[in-house]
């Protein structure tokens, strides 16, 4: 079955003023859609690949034929990353994590503020296009970043990082340029206002 663009789990203006409606509309309806369409195009006619789930496909890129591995990596990654990203945000969210996740963040980074600073630094430090991630590696939290649409699911040999992602932020310019232009740092600070920590906590509980 062909891959499909998931609906946004909230209205496109729901994240205003932190992420504007036009950005959400284009980001979801054009960029994400293009990844889905291009992924379907890349695997068309390859029944074995078409039968795989998105996760299975991008976590085993070695089994994808050379001729389409680049498109599957880029567009499969783009589809997975954006599908994940939308679910991590919501209106009237933000605040601070609680419970086990809060304890794990304090243990790994010292405090929530230090965690935020390090996560923002990972986003700012990603030169060009990419993502910053909070991942669970052997039960502990770590911050990593990947170029383009790579992600931790692809594994260390492909993306340079590993672990189970429980939070990610898109730092492609298309994620913030209409509202923030060159000010990626401001976008990353605003991101904290829309993070759904309940979702991140549930992902953490499942991953550790």
């Amino acid at each position, binding site marked *: 079955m062909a891959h499909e663009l998931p609906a946004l789990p909230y209205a496109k203006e729901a994240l205003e003023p932190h992420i504007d409606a036009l950005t959400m509309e284009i980001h979801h309806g054009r960029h994400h859609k293009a990844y889905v369409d291009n992924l379907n195009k890349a695997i068309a006619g390859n029944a074995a690949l078409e039968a795989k789930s998105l996760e299975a496909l991008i976590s085993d890129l070695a089994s994808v034929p050379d001729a389409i591995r680049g498109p599957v990596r880029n567009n499969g990654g783009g589809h997975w990353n954006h599908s994940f990203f939308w679910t991590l945000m919501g209106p009237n969210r933000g605040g601070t994590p609680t419970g086990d996740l809060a304890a794990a963040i304090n243990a790994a980074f010292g405090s929530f503020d230090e965690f935020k600073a390090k996560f923002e630094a990972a986003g700012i430090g990603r030169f060009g296009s990419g993502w910053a991630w909070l991942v669970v590696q052997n039960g502990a939290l770590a911050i990593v970043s990947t170029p383009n649409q790579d992600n931790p699911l692809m594994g260390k040999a492909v993306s340079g990082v590993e672990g189970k992602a429980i939070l990610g932020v898109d730092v492609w310019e298309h994620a913030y340029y209409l509202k923030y232009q060159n*000010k990626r740092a401001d976008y990353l600070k605003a991101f904290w206002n829309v993070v759904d920590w309940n979702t991140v906590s549930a992902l953490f509980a499942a991953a550790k």
Partner: protein
Amino acid sequence: MITRRSALKSAALASAGLFISTSLTRALAQAAAPSGPHKLPELGYAFEALEPFIDRQTMEIHHGKHHAAYVGNLNRALADYPDLQKLSAEELIANLDKVPEKIRTAVRNNAGGHANHSLFWKSLKKDADPLDSGPLQEALGELFGDKETGEKMFFDKAMGVFGSGWVWISVDKDKKLILESTPNQDSPLMAGRKPLFGLDVWEHAYYLKYQNRRADYVKAVVSLVNWPFLNERFEKLTA
């Protein structure tokens, strides 16, 4: 932290949508760059000179913020290296193996960004004279065949850059033209080739006007190529 404050102030003004004069924008951009050997070059024309193909706001931010940031970050990276401060951005990126590992990535990204943008501004001109004859036209013919095929090949190359990067027509060591692309702010100079013309396909180069429609941006810029400048540059690069 005057530098940071100036940058934030200028950012706040821009996001408020207030009118900012060209000279003020330039002054703020220069204030944002720490002192050092590298300077943000003048654009060479007005921010609105390439309208409607490239809009004024894009040019202001692209030159005054993005390019200025590469210059500032390059100066910062070189602060403790007086010998390297004597080299041009082009010399630095053509010799990255001689740059200490500690600052190599910063120099690669920011000297790359500085050199690439400096060339880009000079390569664009509205209503420039076409290329009628001469060595560059012959070399382009050898690379691409006819003009239509050339534009198609260049377009496809630009569309094929995934993420941030550039597409180039560069001169190889045999003085032949090649079509290539690089990620991020990498330059053909890093591979021993000389860039003749580079097209910026970072989203910041087109997002305010074209959003996800890179194809429309690439088609628009093809009409802005400053052929007399490239003709002269080709002669120098192959002399």
